[in-house]
C-alpha cells in the first residue's frame, strides 16, 4: 500500500461521539486525501491537503474536519458522528499535481450505531 497506513482499521462508535481517523505516509508526498466509499456511490472526496496546514473541502465535507500539522500525517475528524457516516474511509496520497496517480491506504471501516 505504497507506504500508507491508516488507524484504526476498524472502529465502532455511538452517535454523537467525536471520532478521529489517522493517515500516515512515509513517501513524503505533498498531496493527501480522505475519501469515503459506500455501495453504489464509489469513492467520494471528503477533504484534501496540498501541504502542511493547507487543506480544502471536497464533495462531501459536511460533518468532517481535517488537520495536517506534519507532511506525513493527515487526520480526519468526525465532530459528532452520525449513522450516515458509517462507511469505509480511505486515505490517498499523490506526489505532484492533485490529479496525478493516487496511492491508497488499506482503509478504515467505521460503524456508527
Amino acid at each position, binding site marked *: 500500500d505504497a507506504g500508507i497506513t491508516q488507524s484504526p482499521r476498524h472502529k465502532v462508535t455511538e452517535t454523537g461521539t467525536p471520532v478521529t481517523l489517522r493517515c500516515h505516509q512515509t513517501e513524503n508526498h505533498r498531496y493527501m486525501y480522505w475519501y469515503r466509499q459506500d455501495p453504489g*456511490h464509489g469513492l467520494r*472526496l471528503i477533504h*484534501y491537503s496540498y501541504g502542511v496546514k493547507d487543506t480544502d473541502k471536497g464533495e462531501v465535507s459536511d460533518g468532517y474536519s481535517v488537520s495536517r500539522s506534519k507532511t506525513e500525517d493527515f487526520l480526519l475528524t468526525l465532530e459528532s458522528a452520525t449513522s450516515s457516516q458509517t462507511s469505509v474511509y480511505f486515505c490517498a496520497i499523490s506526489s505532484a499535481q492533485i*490529479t496525478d496517480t493516487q496511492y*491508497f*491506504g*488499506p*482503509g478504515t471501516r467505521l460503524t456508527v450505531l
Partner: protein
Amino acid sequence: SQKIEQNSEALNIQEGKTATLTCNYTNYSPAYLQWYRQDPGRGPVFLLLIRENEKEKRKERLKVTFDTTLKQSLFHITASQPADSATYLCALDIPGNKLVFGAGTILRVKS
C-alpha cells in the same frame, strides 16, 4: 456536475476470454482518465492512465482506449485469469483539479 457511469452489474466471463469494461462520462471533458483495481477489503490500486490525446494505452494484458467524441473509455483484459477478478474503477479529472471516481464494475473470471 460530472457524472461517471460504469456497469453496475457484475461482468462474468470465462477464463481465457477478453473482458471489456466500460466507463462513460457526461459534461466536462477530462484531460485524462485513470483505471484502478480494487480487491475486497483493500484500497484501490492504480493500473493505467490515458490522456485525451491518446487513443490507446497498453500494459501487459491490459489495454485502455479513450474516445473523447463518444465520451467513453474501454478497459480490456486479454487472456483473463481468475486472479483478475476484482472491482475496476475509472477516474477522471474535473475542474478544480480533483479526481472523480466511478462506482466501479465487478469482474468475475471463472475457470
